[in-house]
């Protein structure tokens, strides 16, 4: 009886060890928990309608930045329970803030991407800080339809900047803007995040 129990225990432990390894590996290299929360349906349906009706699907959206070798799928991200813009769930992808402006429309379309993954290896926006004024950024909206943006500047914010102080990132509405956000600066162990956020601004070239 004891031998059977011991064998079963070893078998379960072996399976668990493999699962844990797989989980840690995927969390470190691939998957990032975004903590995104759903908005109340009435609010969400009002806000999500920001995808223009002529866009049938956002599944084909891609962000292309030739100068820093970025060619990434654009997913949709919302808001976390703490009130932050959610981050993309995959380190190699970027996330468009779906409650904001759609890329190419008047206003600020905001896209976020990770700077590094759970093993400190480069993620999609590792070299975002290398972008310079005048560099090209392309947003592929649909197959064959590409928007051309040009970098016009960058700004660094504190990680805990209040929504009021980062309002311009999301709400500037005098041009067709694109904002790319990633983490920068030093790692804050206490908060488990970097202490700064880099925001690159680009404008649509008609």
């Amino acid at each position: 009886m004891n031998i059977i129990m011991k064998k079963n225990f070893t078998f379960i432990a072996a399976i668990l060890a493999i699962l844990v390894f797989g989980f840690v590996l995927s969390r470190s290299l691939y998957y990032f928990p975004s903590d995104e929360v759903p908005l109340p349906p009435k609010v969400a349906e009002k806000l999500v309608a920001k995808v223009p009706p002529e866009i049938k699907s956002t599944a084909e959206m891609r962000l292309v930045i030739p100068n820093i070798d970025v060619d990434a799928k654009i997913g949709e991200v919302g808001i976390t329970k703490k009130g932050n813009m959610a981050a993309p769930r995959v380190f190699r992808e970027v996330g468009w803030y779906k409650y904001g402006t759609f890329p190419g429309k008047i206003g600020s379309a905001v896209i976020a991407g990770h700077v590094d993954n759970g093993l400190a290896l480069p993620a999609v926006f590792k070299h975002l800080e290398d972008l310079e004024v005048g560099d090209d950024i392309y947003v592929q909206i649909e197959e064959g339809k590409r928007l051309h943006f040009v970098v016009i500047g960058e700004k660094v914010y504190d990680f805990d900047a209040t929504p009021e102080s980062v309002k311009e990132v999301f709400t500037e509405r005098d041009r067709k803007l694109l904002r790319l956000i990633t983490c920068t600066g030093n790692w804050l162990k206490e908060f488990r995040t970097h202490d700064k956020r880099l925001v690159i601004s680009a404008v649509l070239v008609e």
Partner: protein
Amino acid sequence: MTNKFLSLFLLIAVVVGVGSVGVQDINAQTASFPSGCSSALGYSITTGFPCNGTSTATIGPLLGCTTALGYSVTNGAPCSGGPTAIFWLAGCTSVQGYSTIDGKACNGTAVAFVPPVVVIDPGTPSLPVTGAGGNAFPNLALLLVAGVSAVLGLRYLSRRPRNEA
């Protein structure tokens, strides 16, 4: 002794009073009207007959009433035109919205009270958390431990059938 009687009397009066008001409310809210009527006033929208069940319709509002709800302030009679007062029309569950029977405003007036939809705009969010590199050391340690365990586990699983055979 007199005080005790007085207290008892008052207590009974209060209980009966509250009870009768409750019963009245229950009666009022369970009052039924002919098909197509949300009160005893006017005509049925389905049959065209008077809603009060007689040959002559009562056209409201009644004296001392502004709507079909409640009691007349002049004579205390039910404003519904029927034997009991109602506090919202039949086909309504509150004074909000419209009656499901005849489409009249549930508050008894010409204009329905529809509560405003409260929209909580998420407004401007804070900036996102877009990096996990600082977790590299604990992740590596965990990965190492889990990796060794997984290798041992795999080794055990690969040898298991042979042992059992």
